[in-house]
């Protein structure tokens, strides 16, 4: 996350509460701020849970429009903690279009369904490679797999992010394409995906979903 957002500072601590850093106008908190880039987090479940809880509850987020939590793939401790400790507004599944990746995406999706987390949709990543020399389209991971999957399971298909050098370069360089080339075709893809997620969140009527609990 620090690399992607081009943030090199370390968060300040106020008592127990961390102050989030800011990159490209977005507040960010990541384990990446707290350890060296090449240090692996060799953690068992309980450590993961405590770090996740800390990122959610012990960070001075202030008023946010949306809090996006980037999760590792899987249906383990981290995902279960998120769905139990936080009343999530929804989950977005990101997958490459190849069958092997879609199998796992489907499992993630079904897990969120079991814990009543609304599925906001599926995004197809690394969708198509367009050769910069000859302009030929190569569908390296296949194409349309995530769209078909979304249709099959009845959730919105949010869009396709192409496999393109500019996206990769800018992400590695800390200048994500949505910020560095906001009018370009790639940024448009991201903007459209973001907009359709916002639309479904606005329509979710999230308030009042949870029952009130009263001790008389």
């Amino acid at each position, binding site marked *: 996350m620090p690399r992607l957002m081009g943030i090199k500072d370390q968060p300040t601590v106020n008592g127990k509460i961390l102050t989030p850093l800011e990159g490209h106008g977005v507040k960010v908190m990541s384990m990446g701020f707290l350890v060296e880039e090449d240090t692996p987090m060799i953690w068992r479940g309980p450590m993961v849970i405590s770090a996740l809880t800390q990122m959610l509850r012990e960070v001075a987020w202030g008023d946010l429009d949306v809090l996006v939590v980037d999760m590792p793939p899987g249906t383990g401790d981290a995902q279960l903690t998120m769905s*139990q400790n936080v009343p999530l507004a929804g989950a977005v599944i990101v997958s490459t279009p190849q069958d092997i990746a879609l199998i796992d995406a489907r499992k993630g999706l079904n897990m969120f369904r079991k814990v009543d*987390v609304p599925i906001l949709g599926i995004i197809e990543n690394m969708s198509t490679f367009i050769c910069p020399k000859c302009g030929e389209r190569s569908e390296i991971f296949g194409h349309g797999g995530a769209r078909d999957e979304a249709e099959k399971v009845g959730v919105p298909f949010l869009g396709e992010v192409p496999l393109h050098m500019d996206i990769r370069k800018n992400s590695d360089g800390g200048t994500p394409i949505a910020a560095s080339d906001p009018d370009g075709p790639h940024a448009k893809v991201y903007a459209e995906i973001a907009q359709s997620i916002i639309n479904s969140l606005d329509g979710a009527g999230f308030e009042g979903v949870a029952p009130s609990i*009263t001790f008389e």
Partner: protein
Amino acid sequence: MTETNPNDTPKDIRVSKERGIMRLFYHDGSEGELSSEYLRISSPSAEVKGHGPGQEVPQVGKRNVLITNIEPVGRYAIRIIFSDGHDTGIFNWPYLKQLIDEKETRWSTYLQDLNSKGLSRD
């Protein structure tokens, strides 16, 4: 766990003053009443159900167990903390609905089961 039906999500959950009754009110106007003892012996926790069919642990002497606290679990369930210290049961909306709908049969099965094993609610 089963897929949930939005109608299974209660609107209000109320625990009586003496903490022995939980009342659930639903969006469609229906409601149900569950005693703390019935909830306690029906806890979906592995401590009660075991880790597979046939591994159920008989729950005895729970007549006076009360509800100490309720914590929301995500969007799909509540965790009930009982006065005997049991706190690992996560009751999701469909299960609570099932406990209401099948109250009579489940309760008489429980009593018969206790009886046949020579165990007691006290």
